[in-house]
């Protein structure tokens, strides 16, 4: 009993005093924003046909459908061409800024607005990849995903260093301006009845906006440190809860895909993989598909392997080493699917979701490579010019930190 109580209190201490998985949340932030950004750039020539007011799923059809389900999309606020182009550009811009981790919390909300606006405008254009992004962009809002590998992280580090030198904090001028502008927009769209549909998104928008005001006020006005610490604790709790939801969501994706497959006769008789390879819509490389399915044993191994990995994955979370092996298998499989089935953005989104389970040591090493690659690149470009960029986490492996890895 005593041990149980101790365990509980240790767990509570853990989820309240820090936002767990800083590297994991950063890598999924980068992964999902990069996926969406590349998608938007890829579809730029087709944007009118996909989401434009005069596309096949035109403004009128979208309005009728959204009238029945109340989903959120800013594109339904106006049928003008200018508004559409603006929203598309907004979606591109916010994904770049969130990728860089600039004003992460605000950008995560705006990123969500961009993703939902385009996707909900034309729901019949999407596939599984869009579905993953749709969910994850909402969950990301609740995480502190800019702790590392972000401009925010860099800003915080510089401020910390300045404080250590005894300099006074420079007040943040842009933050309040951004907050005021967005607040004005929020009041305007709410007052004109544009958020009258489903409550989920309006509640998130208003909630984050108010929370930021409270955060700012407490940071400046509170006479003792306690209110600020309390807010920090709440932020950690929300972050850790969202991180758990993201992980559970990834597990549910695999579990659903796996358990339903087990019931299918083709997955049972070991021929399932042959069929998607021969669907016109999923076979960009017919010769490759032919090669892959020429051997019955090969097809059977891939078929059974897929099901086993998908069904087993959630259970392997209880063992780090097995989990990492399966993770590598799944990331590889998705990379193969990207090319063989012609589903690059679906695969990218799934790999980004998988990345939440990557161990911290690996992610830190990855960050080190990236920083070195960038350092080398900028040296090449600037020939020994000053490099003031952040050093990037390039610490050698440190077993002490390993536990942050996969929070389980």
């Amino acid at each position, binding site marked *: 009993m005593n041990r149980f109580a101790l365990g509980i209190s240790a767990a509570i201490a853990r989820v309240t005093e820090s936002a767990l998985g800083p590297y994991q949340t950063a890598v999924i932030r980068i992964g999902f924003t990069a996926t969406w950004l590349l998608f938007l750039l890829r579809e730029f020539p087709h944007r009118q046909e996909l989401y434009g007011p005069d596309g096949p799923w035109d403004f009128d059809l979208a309005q009728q459908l959204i009238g029945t389900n109340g989903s959120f999309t800013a594109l339904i606020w106006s049928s003008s061409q200018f508004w559409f182009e603006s929203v598309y550009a907004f979606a591109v811009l916010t994904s770049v800024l969130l990728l860089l981790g600039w004003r992460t919390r605000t950008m995560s909300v705006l990123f969500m607005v961009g993703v939902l606006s385009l996707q909900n405008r034309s729901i019949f254009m999407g596939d599984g990849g869009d579905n993953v992004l749709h969910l994850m962009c909402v969950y990301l809002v609740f995480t502190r995903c800019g702790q590392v590998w972000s401009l925010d992280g860099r800003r915080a580090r510089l401020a910390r260093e300045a404080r250590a030198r005894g300099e006074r904090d420079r007040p943040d001028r842009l933050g309040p301006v951004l907050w005021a502008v967005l607040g004005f927009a929020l009041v305007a769209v709410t007052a004109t009845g544009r958020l009258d549909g489903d409550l989920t998104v309006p509640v998130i928008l208003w909630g984050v906006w108010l929370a930021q005001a409270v955060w700012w006020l407490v940071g400046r006005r509170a006479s003792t440190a306690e209110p600020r610490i309390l807010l920090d604790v*709440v932020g950690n709790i929300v972050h850790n809860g969202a991180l758990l*939801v993201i992980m559970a*969501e990834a597990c549910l994706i695999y579990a659903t895909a796996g358990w339903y497959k087990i019931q299918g006769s083709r997955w049972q008789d070991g021929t399932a993989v042959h*069929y998607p390879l021969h669907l016109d819509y999923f076979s960009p490389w017919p010769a490759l598909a032919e090669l892959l399915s020429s051997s019955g044993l090969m097809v059977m191994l891939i078929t059974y392997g897929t099901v086993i990995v998908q069904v087993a994955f959630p259970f392997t979370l209880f063992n780090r080493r097995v989990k990492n092996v399966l993770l590598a298998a799944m990331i590889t499989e998705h990379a193969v699917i990207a090319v063989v089935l012609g589903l690059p953005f679906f695969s990218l989104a799934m790999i980004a979701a998988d990345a939440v389970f990557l161990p911290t040591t690996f992610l830190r090493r990855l960050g080190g490579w990236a920083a070195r690659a960038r350092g080398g690149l900028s040296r090449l470009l600037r020939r020994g010019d000053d490099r*003031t960029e952040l050093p990037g986490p390039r610490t050698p492996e440190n077993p002490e930190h390993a536990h942050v890895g996969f929070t389980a």
Partner: protein
Amino acid sequence: MDAYDAGSAARHGPDEETRDAPPAVASPPAPPAPVIPEPRTGVAALSLRYQVGAALALAVVAIAVCVHIGMVFLHVAPLNTVTKQHGKAIDDWIYPEFEQNWKLFAPNPLQQNIAVQVRAQVDTADGGTRTTGWYDLSAQDGRAIDGNLLPSHTQQNELRRAWDFFVATHDAQNRPVGLRGALSETYLRHIVQLRLDRANAAGDGGVVERVQVRSRTTNVRPPEWSDEQVSDRPTDRILPWWSVPAEQTGGAGGAGALRQAEEGVR
């Protein structure tokens, strides 16, 4: 977290080749002891009053997380005792923003190629009427996807999912079911109009008056090493002719307008 950053910065210090980096990067050579840059945070630093607040937040978040994960689980689970009783509550929670479906290729992968094809009745410039041949739009999509590392959603999803949507919202006699049925019909018509327009099916001076859509379903042949036999004969589902509203004969969508603009220039 803070400890990591400070740690990595400190360890990075000595490696710096150039000395013009921000001075603070060269924080005093870190002693091997753990660096604790900031006072302890978390509930331990709070007085009882604030601890109650933190506990409340923890309880609320814990409940929200459990409920959400539970709802998503029930949403993706097969029909069961709970979903039969509380389906409405689950749907209210999930729809519209948390809807999800991960059953691509499950329980069985699609084993048929479904080609959506269209033909048009055209009023020609000389006052006659002409019926075009069938345009195999899915085959066009398939060709566009062949050898393509980055297939567009317009090639891979648009027509395919529009047809799925149509089938799901129509009965066997091709009668629409509810509003979604009507929407899917208009949507499919817009897509085929756009594609006919791109193929210039109406010809110079012609106008598409009516369109007819059919699907042609062909079984994927079983693997060579299998002794299974399936029929090679395609099965067709032919929809009635649909009239094209006058204002849309230019073709739905930007492409139609675009092409007209180009023709205007010529």
